[in-house]
């Protein structure tokens, strides 16, 4: 009897602490632990150098993201440069791997991408001003670790002509308040309906801010996934904006170096 009472007291004593966390507190902790909100706000552009391990090949990749929404990812391979998801503010484009020529993404993908341009450097930064909502769903064990599950709802997107909510779930490690897993339903293509899962680890400091240096993309419940290993990150690099521009037709031959 006495034991039961103590257990009950114990539960009472602990539970207020456990429920005191709100989504905003978690996010505040996250920004604080990763360099401070003010420092995050100062970031104008980020350049990532890294590699993707593909069948024993280390494919070097480079990514650039800018506050004005321009973004670019490229991989050099066998003397050719493949661009993926390059955005100049108006046009979203990628390299066609048959012709090595640049091709525009469809209007819907471009419009949806445009909605993400205010997410630099982090969608949670000023989420209220952006009209986003966040909600603490609860605690969940992911990757064996206890996490806070936070739901982020951004601007609605279009999926095959119909408007849909844009929902992402972030799992923040309860110990250090950094996200270790992000999940999002795959809306189109062959995996539609499945949940895409991004795992983040190897957080390291870059000029006072912390970034994950290992990012693994996969599908929830499925083994494997593709790891992107970040080798270096440059904050506010000098980037010539021409790299984002959709190449003029003549320039499509510039795939090779000669």
């Amino acid at each position: 009897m006495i034991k039961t009472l103590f257990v009950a007291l114990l539960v009472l004593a602990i539970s207020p602490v456990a429920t005191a966390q709100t989504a905003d507190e978690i996010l505040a902790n996250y920004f604080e632990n990763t360099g401070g909100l003010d420092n995050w706000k100062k970031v104008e552009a980020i350049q990532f150098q890294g590699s993707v391990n593909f069948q024993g090949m280390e494919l070097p990749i480079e990514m650039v993201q800018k506050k004005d929404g321009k973004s670019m990812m490229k991989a050099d391979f066998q003397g050719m440069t493949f661009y993926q998801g390059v955005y100049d503010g108006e046009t979203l484009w990628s390299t066609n791997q048959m012709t090595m020529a640049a091709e525009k993404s469809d209007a819907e993908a471009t419009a949806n991408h445009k909605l993400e341009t205010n997410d630099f450097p982090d969608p949670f930064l000023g989420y209220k001003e952006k009209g986003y909502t966040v909600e603490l769903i609860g605690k969940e064990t992911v990757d064996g670790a206890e996490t806070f599950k936070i739901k982020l709802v951004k601007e609605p997107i279009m999926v095959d002509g119909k408007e849909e909510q844009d929902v992402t779930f972030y799992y923040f490690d309860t110990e250090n308040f950094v996200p270790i897993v992000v999940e999002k339903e795959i809306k189109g293509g062959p995996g539609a309906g499945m949940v895409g899962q991004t795992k983040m680890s190897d957080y390291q400091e870059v000029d006072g801010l912390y970034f994950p240096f290992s990012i693994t993309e996969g599908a929830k419940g499925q083994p494997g996934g593709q790891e992107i290993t970040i080798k270096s990150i440059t904050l506010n690099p000098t980037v010539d904006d021409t790299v984002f521009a959709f190449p003029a037709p003549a320039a499509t031959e510039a795939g090779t170096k000669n």
Partner: protein
Amino acid sequence: MKKLIILLLAVATLPLSLSAQEISLKGKELFGDLSARHIGPALMSGRINDLEVHPTNTRIMYAGAAGGGVWKSVDGGATFTAIFDEHPQSIGVVTLDPKDPDQTIWVGTGETWTRNSVSVGKGLFRTTDGGSTWKEIPGFENSERIASVVINPNNTKEVYVGVLGALWSDSEDRGIYKTTDGGATWKKILYVNPSTGAGDVIMDPKNPNTLYASMWEFRRSGWGFNSGGPNSALYKSTNGGETWNKIHNGFPSGDLGRIGVAVAPSDSNIIYAVLETEDKTKNGLWKSADAGQNWEHLNNDFGLTVRPFYFSRITVDPRNPDIIVKGGLSGSISRDGGKTFKDLGNMHSDIHDIVFHINDSDIMYAGTDGGVYRSWNGGTVFEIVENLPLSQFYHISVDDAEPYNVYGGLQDNGSWYGPSSSPGGVNARDWNSVGYGDGFRVLKHPTKNIIYSEMQGAQNVWRYDVDRNRTKTVQPLQEKGVAKLRFNWNAPMAVSAHVPDRFYMGSQFVHKSDDMGESWTIISPDLTTNDPAKQNQLESGGLSMDNSGAENHTTIFTIAESPLDQNVLWVGTDDGNVQVTKDGGKSWTNVTANLTGIPANTWVYHIEASVHGKGTAYAVFDGHTSGDMKPYAMKTTDYGATWKNIISEDISAKAFVRNIQEDYVNEDLLFLGTEFGLYVTIDGGKSWSQFTNNMPPVAIHFIDMQKQTNDVVMGTHGRGVIIIDDISPLRELNQEVLAKNVHFFKNDAFTMKEESGFAGSFGSETQFVGRNKSTSAKIIYYLKKRHTFGKMTLELQDMEGNKITSLPAGKSKGINVVDWSFTSSSPKMAEGKTLAFGGFTPKRVPEGKYKVILTKGKDTYEHVIEVKYDDTSLTSLAERKEQEELTSTLFDMVEDLAYMVYEINTMQETAKEVIENNSKGKKNAQKLYDSLEALRKDLVITTGDGYVASADPELRERMGDLYSGVASAYDGVSADQKRNFELIAGQLKTEQERFAKIKAKEGKKFMSFLEKNELPKPAVLSREDFLSKK
């Protein structure tokens, strides 16, 4: 005072916290990357309880499976995805919020078509984000079966929930509940008695205050079923459920059974009801044209009256009140307001629900015992949805083939076997039929290619000779002087591990055959209670007789032969007896009385005779057919004289147990199959942990362990066959291991599998394809903590410490599994205009030992693994060494060429610089540039694209193809490959000489020009630097 309590608290918790130093990891914390894979099959799919279409978006629909969860389609029913995998899989109803149908979905669990083998539910759930997260709505924990969730379209905070309730016991949770605050509080607004539940709750679509409700008096036991009674009735409320009136005007007097009811969406005055009554001529379809005030009997065809407990759904065309569809054995459709019906088109029998497309009544969806079907022509032709792996196994077994096969029988879907892995994944076409009817136990003969299978009640037991494609019926038959045989619906069979042709079956007796069923001997007395009160199946059914054989009772249900002694046999009966013989059946001991803590007559669902001791066995007990949902599992080590309870409080209180599987190596490692998923213990049952990695809490009816692979194979009743590959790491887990920061698990040597067949992937866009077992080497380690900050890498090295490759490290707390496909790096290819696919082929490593180096911050952990060649290889060692050597030679040649092209490119860049900026040197530079360019064009492709505008292959492409062909082959180098190699090696040499000449002639001139003018020379890296440059 407060301080005192805190002090007391500290003292009281001290011993607790001391013992808490024992590390007890649960579920996802422990199992990490050990993940289940699902292999279906989906070709016969499984029972559907409820279908729901989106009110405005024609692409979206939902299927609630009887035992397989909730599935969502976003493509008009072409494909489905599971969205309810963390919750009970038995579904009663899926309802979308009319105002927020994209986000807010209600799921009532517990299937409602109450056959003998139904699963149970565990309450009411709701998502407000389209199914990503679900919350349980408090108040319905004991509902067991929820038949209806009805939402007021004008005020979606007003919701009615119809609880059908417990099938095997009384329950005061039955009835109709209402909330007016979106589910925060509930009021029970219609309750009849503990045996009468809510069948249908229907809202008038035009007037949400008008409700119709059918109440049904019903009960099932392990040996019978009753539908109907004085309390079954059809009610109407016109004030939002405040008061209810029976609306029976015109119905026959006497008891009623299950009642299905529907309001025509286009005319609220037209109500249809299907009735089960005492008067057979009055069963079937009734119609009211005045909103239930008066009723007229229209039709009592077979299709309208068949098995009301299983089929009583009526659906009215949303646009035409005269078009009615009714579920049934085949399903029926009327186009004259219910006067006449015809069968729906061919599809799997037993149709439980039908819905119309929201805009086009030609399009219909049907939920059957065999999945979801679609019709495009008003119900005449149906096609099956091919990616719903909802198969409901009663039993599974495995063989020792490679890859091993899984055998099993399904509810209403016959018996099958299929491979645990198959080229391209386990497809529908991989499954082979080995029995009709309801399928149950399917066993492979231990040495011959012969399969035993059965149908319900052992009406047929088949011995199927696979090679000769011959079937013989071999069930034991009654003989003179012997009582009538009582077989369970799911009759037990067993094959002997000691005498391959020996085959056991159980009625109330144990039957033994030593000639594969040709002749049988009874080797036991009646081992059941033989209680005549449980043998009146002819009276089963209630108002509608239902003697399918499914309720046969007082039968043997499980037979287990000791793997250590052929004379030790265990028998468990459905009426609670555990009996054992130590002399091959000469004498039997009833050890039931020793089962302390097991209520009398609790169904003995499975006995597992242990490999760890002749007298050791496990028995699990299932009391759910008498309303007792508690988990029971016992262990004996002395032939049943004493038993130890091995259930801990970690197991959900309602997770009744159907199966247990012991590990063949570690006696403390056990797997428990419950109504709500899989539990694992590593300490012999002191504590259990639920396994939830890609493993829904589905009813597990049988578990087997495949000995060669250490795979745990589960036959689930709703999600097909689910496999956890290689559980051997769990054998090593103990406190010492769990306390380490990093622990590498032991591995046997890994075989580099050489199979290289073909796999057509046609149809996989819309068909379920089961995931294969990975054939890679597995590097398995435990991390005490999830790695989040700082670098962590995993590298493979040869024993001298040279890097082979780096692998993506797993960083989860718990068990991590990293696959390695036995390869090192791919060669660096020369730069060109198109991709040379040779560059995608990595070298395979030779047989031997390799070091795994895990680096975590400043700490390094080492582990050695071994890989070996395939025993089934068609290649001699000498041939293999030749292949490995040529692979290395070609790898180097490919990189030599890459370096030469790099040198050329670099020199050309400098030359170009001079051509553009230095008129003095332009001539020499141009000469060099041109001769290099002519050379380059012979080395690599410089024009065209990667598809049909491709240029002819140059040296790089031809060399790359040869490299790739040799490197990826498992056999020796062919004569043609050798000749091709000579040609290519010769060409490389020629081109290298040509390059040397250019360097000596044009190059030299150019270099001396640069020197004279003090211009920078081409910055050519060394070969080594070039190759290591990323």
